[in-house]
């Protein structure tokens, strides 16, 4: 057996390790209800902005709170200890990484998906005619 073969075997072992650990470390997508079953455990929740709920940013305390609806339709108050993200009102989908507490979901990181420009053109040019007929 050559030394390079031994090296190859070690490399394959490390690769297997990387696969197992990466899959194990990865978080999972859940809804608010599942997150609430394990308060304090970090999860990724995908939802969208609840436009009917109050949205409030307290710059002094640096605390942004809003209402979110997850993919199952359940609503939850979300607190984010960061400034209000730019253009938050226009977000189509919000990915929230964080954990549940008794009173609210504490988001540590928020990613937003904003509507693409393509939709706006339809509003401006095409769909104007659609409600007339």
């Amino acid at each position, binding site marked *: 057996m050559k030394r390079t073969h031994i090296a190859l075997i070690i490399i394959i072992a490390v690769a297997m390790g990387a696969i197992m650990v990466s899959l194990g470390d990865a978080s999972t*997508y859940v809804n608010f209800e599942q997150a609430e079953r394990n308060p304090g455990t970090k999860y*990724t929740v995908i939802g969208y902005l609840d436009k009917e709920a109050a949205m409030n940013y307290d710059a002094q305390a*640096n605390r942004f709170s809003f209402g979110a609806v997850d993919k199952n339709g359940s609503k939850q108050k979300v607190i984010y*200890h960061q400034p209000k993200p730019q253009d938050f009102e226009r977000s189509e989908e919000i990915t929230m990484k964080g954990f549940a507490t008794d009173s609210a979901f504490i988001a540590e990181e928020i990613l937003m998906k904003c509507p693409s420009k393509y939709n706006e053109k339809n509003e401006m*040019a095409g769909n*104007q005619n659609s409600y007339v007929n």
Partner: protein
Amino acid sequence: MEYIGEHLLPGFIGRLSVSTAFVSALVAMVAYYLNARNENAGYRKIARYSFGLHSLATLGIVLSLFYLLLNHYFEYDYVWKHSSLNLEPRFVFSAFWEGQEGSFILWLFWNAVLGLILMFKAKDWENHSMMVFSAVQAFIASMVLGVYPLGLKIGSSPFVLMRETAENIGLPWTQLANYLERFPAFMDGTGLNPLLQNYWMTIHPPTLFLGFASTLVPFALAMAALIKGDFKSWVKPALPWAFFSVGILGLGILMGGAWAYEALSFGGFWAWDPVENSSLVPWIVMAGAAHLLLIYRNKRAGLSAAFIMSLLSFILILYSTFLTRSGILGDSSVHSFVDLGLSGQLLIYLLFFSVLALGLFLWRYKKIPKSKSDDDLSSREFWMFIGSLILFISAFQIIFSTSLPVINKLIGPEGLIPILSENKAPHLDPIAHYHSWQLPFALVIAILMAIGQFLRYGKTASKVFWRGISIALILSIALASYTAQVYYLWSEPLYLALLYSGFFAVFSNLWYWLISGKANWSFAGSSVAHIGFALILVGALISNGRKQVISRSQVFTENQAANENIQMLQGDSLKLGPYTGVYEGVEMEGQKQFYKVSYFNNPGDSEPLFQLRPFLQFSDQMGPNPNPDTKHYWNYDIYTHITYSSELEVSSPDGFGNEAEVSLGQGDTAIYEGHFVVLDSTLANFVGNEERQEILAGKLTAHLRLINPMGTEFPIQPAFVVENDFKEFRDTVLAMQGFKFRFEDVDPDKNEIQIRAWTKVDPIEKPYIVQKAIVFPMINILWMGSILMVIGSFIAVWQRIKRS
């Protein structure tokens, strides 16, 4: 029907060029194939002329698209989406490659340039390698074909008119001959994303795509060798290309990092974002491939590994293309492209070349010469081989973790083979996840770079080795200890180990060049590149490992740890790390809002030490975009960006904020700020021309009731008027309650209307900003290392060309 005001000729030339480029690449491929099987001057001529025609057609595509962009022909969808009348001419390049179609064209262009060089330089390898090249070009050209045979979409063309796009076809306005004049929306494009309006967007994509293109040459040569069954002599021509690829792709990636650091507010130069990762991984593999080729060139060993890595680098480029453009990354990346409906085509492209290349390799594997003797433990080739394997495993770890969305599609609960019980989401803390793997790899690589230079091919006498390395070892221990002392790195063993090995690699390579290379520039390639890479590691370690957020908020809420963003009221002095910061005020310059912040050494100083002006850039489509401002000192940077400002608080100029939107059907009730809102009815009035069955104007009024907590009712009747395709809102303002209501739109499918409501907001007493400020120590080591690594790679290319 004849449309008024359209410019059809340049678009026609563009499309013709695309089809010519596609067809001539196919012809070149077939002719090269025939010529490879049966050498024939006729075939060769056809092949070369076809590839020449292909290159000309590619140039034609580039020029047509530039022509459309420069002349603001907004009837073209691509021009409308990526440029506007007020776009400065110097950003026309950025507009060119902002979209996917443009970036495919850029890739096609660089491949054609490199293909032409290869055609004249490859000699014996021309037939087989150019056959592969032409096949790749046919695939890329097909990405911008934009044809629909049998209802299948093949490619997306940048030369499509807006009225011809799938999303617009059949809409009433496409039937109007004068649509360009009639609708103001077509007079001007939506413009270039303001985030991309800077010089980095002009230089980063072409460099990166040249890097992508450069990986094709070693791939094509390796494929040629496998097809031909001549496994050895391709290594010599492939070597300079491999180093060129390491240099130019590395430059492209580092430019991306510099851009992120300087002009985007990601808070650093590298965030392990999937899009960043997917260009880094082919580079790591190419670096491994270049070293394996070097081993074979010097010691006739490790040829199979050299083959597999050379093939993999290009395949990984294809895989990255698939990841970033198929939309599969979805919500795991902030800056991947949207799906253009090409994911199937991209997948075929990826599978075609990976199955072909790996199949060919396995088929030929037995015949590839292998060295019989075992490498000596004291030989350079053994440790270089180990280093390449580590690069491979490092690349594997990154791409595997980046591919979680793909893994969900394959083995997730709704995947092809459901193994996992739930879909895997990206790591909650990606930086910690990647660092836990990549730091140890980097550590080993640094040590190998340090000792490798003093090992000889074959066997090294231990006396020679230690004599060479001892001085570097002593110097590096001294400097690393000093650095660890200055930057308090003693408590973190992994950082400390990387620091020592990084400095070790720097001094060892420097010493080697001074002693063995006799400080001769023509031998400097490997030393300079290695010093550069080691400095990148050291610079990243110190600047990131010891970065200090100096904008920690002093206010604690709900037991949350102090926040990294600080609120600064205008005129108030605040402690920002070692400085006293004062927010001076806001200035508007065009679409940019500059926030001036002064930094003083001592609170009482009259003259500030320096001022920073981070800004928010506004645009119609994107809203405000923060842009950082950084104070550079030789040994540290103060990097600041605005995360919020009081200027953003009131969304409408009349003092109303807290926007909310609700959909209501008839009789529905909504709750807004403690009040009930009831929709009683909706009234529509139209003015029309009965003879021509046309509606000229219409007014829609919503009859709503607002009921306050006491039960008192207030009628509100917001309305909107549509006339000449313009929509005008007639909002209702309730001054007493401080509410404003707008009848936004009608949803005829659901029989609902949309109402938007605002509350009067108190005028802000004192303007403020919320900003984040980070000190990055020694980040200049990182930039210096980047430049050295690129220079070193190009010296290596020059060395290889000169020697052959």
